[in-house]
């Protein structure tokens, strides 16, 4: 095997290790699903993972960074995690797989592209992740974690979380 091919293989292995780390607050999705893990590059035997936080004050950032370091270490790399703030994370970076995992977990995935200008009192219709009904109500703009809002379904009566757009 050529040196370049070995390098590619190692990079892929480092990516696989880091990308398997799950979000401690939303454990149904990995940090790759969420788009938080931007890239992993190798410099010698050091694997550098680039991570972008979801919210300015996201309390899970440190836990995620430590978990990435641990995963890379276990895979035999000398780990380094770099926090990348620009461009800022947006819910548009959640992969399609991530979106369906969220839904299966009972969290309605973000519905509209972020960055669209939201007017005050603008309400988007969110489908219930359990019964697909569009007859839902926003309970609160803020939920159990920074990234979620609280909704309720008026048909199946279940409360649910909505992964809000940002």
């Amino acid at each position, binding site marked *: 095997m050529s040196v370049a091919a070995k390098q590619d293989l190692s990079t892929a292995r480092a990516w696989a290790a880091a990308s398997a780390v799950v979000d401690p607050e939303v454990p149904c999705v990995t940090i790759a699903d969420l788009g938080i893990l931007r890239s992993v590059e190798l410099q010698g035997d050091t694997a550098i993972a680039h991570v972008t*936080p979801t*919210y*300015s*004050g*996201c*309390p899970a950032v440190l836990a995620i960074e430590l978990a990435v370091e641990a995963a890379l270490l276990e895979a035999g790399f000398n780990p380094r995690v770099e926090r990348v*703030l*620009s*461009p*800022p*994370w947006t819910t548009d970076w959640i992969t399609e797989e991530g979106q369906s995992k969220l839904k299966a977990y009972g969290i309605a995935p973000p519905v509209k592209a*972020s960055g669209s200008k*939201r007017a*005050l*009192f603008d309400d988007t219709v969110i489908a219930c992740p359990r019964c697909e009904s569009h007859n839902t109500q926003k*309970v*609160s*703009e*803020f*939920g*159990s974690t*920074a990234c979620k809002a*609280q909704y309720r379904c008026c048909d199946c009566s279940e409360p649910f979380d909505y992964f*809000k757009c*940002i």
Partner: protein
Amino acid sequence: MTNNQSYGGADHIEALLALADDHLILGHRLSEWCGHAPMLEEDLSLPNMALDLLGQARNLFAHVANLENCGKSEDDLAYLRSDREYKNCLMVERPNGDFAHTMLRQLYFAAFMQPYWQAMEDSTDDTLRALAGKAEKEMSYHIRHAGEWVVRLGDGTEESAHRMVNAVVALHPYTDELFEISAPLQNCIEHGLLPDPTPIRAPWQAMIEDIFSQAYLTIPDVPFPQEGGRHGRHTEDFGHLLSELQYMQRAYPGMAW
């Protein structure tokens, strides 16, 4: 590079600290609501908003601490300065009062910061530009949430409307200071490091008027605007706030989680 007026200079540090202090102190005030909000949903909302503000403050303190002339750590800056060294505007240190006061203060602040962060996306300071993109979006949630409450309370019961009017009378005199241009900020504006708040004033006023019209509130005349925070002159309540904010680092110097 070590020129007083350019990147990393004393004025840059001073102006960034004023901005960081606004976020730290308002975040601390909001966190005081944790466990005391009028309903469960708000008990989640208020600490969530506090977390946004504390995250923004922390990013700003970390940025200042990384500037070569600073010589202090992020924790020193947040927890170990004396009252006169904090340069936050007075509005953010005002006691929470009732829910109407807290929501109105949040609306006033967020309606200013959202466009101000947006303007920072053109800063010549790379770190600030990176932070601004995220913070601007977070603040638009605060505007929406606080704005909805101001309307709901102003257009609510006799009691809630009365409380909302009281909040406006008490807090409006503190809004002028949001637009104050201190000497360090002036230098930063000239160097493109921080935006000029002046162009934000008219749209800010228009947004507040729009929300007030839905809430049956009017903007009061303010003969004597309150100011002094940007020069380190604070209200009596600030000392009490700091004694709580700084307690752990004062009692257990250098402690970490």
